[in-house]
């Protein structure tokens, strides 16, 4: 178990900056997810933590000790890879045993024939066997121990890779998109399983993914990266409700958040498409963007809505509907969630109103940073706010 802290870390390949001033502390026993679109540098960051790549400058500490000069094997970390990276010529059992064999034996104890006749060989072997058996039982792969990776399905290989990582009680687990080679159903299943494994082991996990759903469902905290920059580190709840940047708001959440161009009048009242909302923010800003998640707006009759538009498409998700509504002044349709009863009554092509819940409306300034906003109480008439 260990706390991992990263201080002012930079990485560049020639002119291209891959990581820019990363500061991140992963607490002991925490499940931290590094999430971001492909090419944002999250895998590079993980490999730097593992010692597989070196940073341009900055520091990585594990349990308070700087590890920058240590080789990967001396950092006492385990890693699970996207391609599983099992040794194809070894059986599952040998694959899982490899990390302990390599660590607890010196070179002559690993020699193919000599190893068996050295004193203490039998005890060493039975020690390894019992550890492998314990891991195999935990992951339910006992029946696969004598097979080779080539004979296993994707999900089974995934478990073996987890087993190989778990077998020697590392300070922390690093996982590099471990689920992205699995089919959708298995991925959701393994998601739960890895999260439970984390609870059982209580070890620090650093998990890299580009899938925001994985990040939301599994992590204690999420670190969202984009273009080599760490944008926000927060709990899933916090990062969803209170994104600090418009890019965070766009990346987290499915379907995507609606971003509407808006203005603020001198009183601080936000208007979208010329219609005032019951939201106040710092006055005198131009070109703000108003973020509304699909579940924070409702479809209503045209005259009751904050804004009006035409319903062009209804997505039936089974338990809910997503209404795609075009608004005259906007290029992209707005997505609004509605429940099944309401969804069934809507008809395509109709003019409908959209009511936006002021409490959950997110305001982003010109440069994309979040600015504070608040709901204007219903009974207060909007002119009186201007004080």
């Amino acid at each position: 178990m260990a706390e991992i802290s990263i201080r002012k870390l930079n990485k560049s390949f020639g002119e291209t900056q891959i990581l820019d001033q990363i500061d991140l502390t992963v607490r002991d026993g925490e499940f931290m997810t590094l999430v971001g679109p492909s090419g944002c540098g999250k895998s590079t960051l993980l490999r730097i933590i593992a010692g597989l790549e070196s940073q341009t400058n900055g520091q990585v500490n594990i349990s308070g000790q700087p590890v920058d000069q240590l080789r990967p094997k001396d950092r006492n970390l385990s890693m699970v890879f996207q391609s599983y990276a099992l040794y194809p010529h070894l059986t599952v059992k040998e694959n899982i045993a490899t990390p302990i064999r390599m660590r607890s034996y010196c070179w002559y104890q690993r020699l193919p024939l000599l190893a068996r006749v050295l004193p203490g060989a039998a005890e060493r072997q039975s020690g390894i066997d019992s550890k492998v058996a314990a891991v195999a039982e935990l992951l339910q792969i006992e029946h696969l121990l004598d097979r080779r990776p080539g004979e296993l399905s994707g999900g089974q290989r995934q478990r073996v890779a987890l087993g190989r990582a778990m077998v020697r009680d590392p300070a922390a687990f690093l996982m590099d998109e471990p689920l992205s080679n699995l089919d959708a159903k298995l991925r959701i299943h393994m998601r739960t399983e890895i999260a439970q494994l984390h609870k059982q082991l209580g070890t620090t996990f650093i998990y890299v993914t580009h899938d925001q759903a994985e990040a939301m469902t599994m992590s204690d905290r999420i670190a969202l990266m984009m273009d080599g920059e760490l944008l926000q580190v927060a709990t899933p709840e916090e990062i969803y409700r209170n994104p600090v940047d418009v890019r965070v708001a766009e990346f987290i959440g499915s379907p995507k958040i609606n971003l509407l161009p808006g203005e603020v009048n001198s009183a601080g009242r936000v208007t979208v498409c010329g219609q005032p909302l019951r939201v106040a923010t710092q006055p005198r800003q131009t070109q703000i963007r108003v973020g509304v998640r699909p579940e924070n707006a409702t479809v209503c009759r045209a005259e009751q809505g904050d804004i009006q538009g035409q319903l062009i498409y209804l997505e039936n998700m089974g338990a809910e509907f997503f209404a795609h509504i075009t608004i005259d002044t906007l290029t992209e349709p707005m997505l609004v969630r509605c429940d099944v009863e309401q969804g069934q009554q809507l008809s395509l092509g109709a003019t409908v109103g959209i009511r936006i819940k002021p409490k959950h409306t997110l305001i982003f300034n010109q440069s994309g940073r979040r600015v504070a906003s608040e709901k204007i109480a219903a009974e207060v008439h909007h002119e009186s706010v201007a004080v």
Partner: protein
Amino acid sequence: MNRQPSLLFRLFRHLVLMSGAMVMLMPFIWMLLTSVKPPDEIFSSELTLWPQHWYFIENYSEALTRIPLMKFLLNGIVVTATIFLCQVSIAVPVAYALAKMRFKGKKTLFAAVLFCLLIPPQAVSIPWYLLMYQFGWLDSYMALIAPFSISVFGIFLMRQFFMTIPNDLIYAARIDGFSELAIIWKVMLPTAMPALVSFGIFSIVAHWNDYFWPLIVLNSPDYYTPPLGLVNFRNDDTGNDYGPLMAAATIVITPLVGAFLLAQKRFIEGITLSGMK
């Protein structure tokens, strides 16, 4: 649309393929048949495929006794095995470095490897001969082995195969505690077995059958490789003795055919450079 081609077409197709196979196989069949024929049948003016009198024991015992064929076979095994081991022990680490390491001048180095592939061995035989002379290695095993101890083809083939192995496997090995040398021999080499087997076949066949280089550097029959030994049956005084010659030739190629049949499956895999998945 799974229509079977017409019978006529299928017959024609097989006929074409079979005649191609016959052209390839005929010399071998002729060698086998000649090795069991008596001399008068070999030299008779009419061509007969099947021997009228079997002369098997005579020809083969002649082949084994007239020259120390077993000694030559042993020489052949020593030379080809040593060459192959040297080639592997150099090609595999070099290929690993070229495929998976980051260092300055890597591209230039690989270009140099490709360039060396273009040099025919005959072109450098005189420099090599002079070098062997300077080292005092002429007429010894060293002269037979040293020029072939590095195979650029081997480096190229292994490098291409290593390129297909995902980097993650090497990262995993580093985290598990393998040293770089251990990664090469314990992870990369077993993974690259198909490529290694096909390279082995190329290398062993080429050096087992090599006639040119041993002929240049050897004088004493003590170090003769099998192809050189076969020449003993060609004699300017008594003419060619084809029966025992063909018997000896059959004995010489038997180990190769056997090895190829054993390694055939992996050989084909290696040629297609199939990946791991």
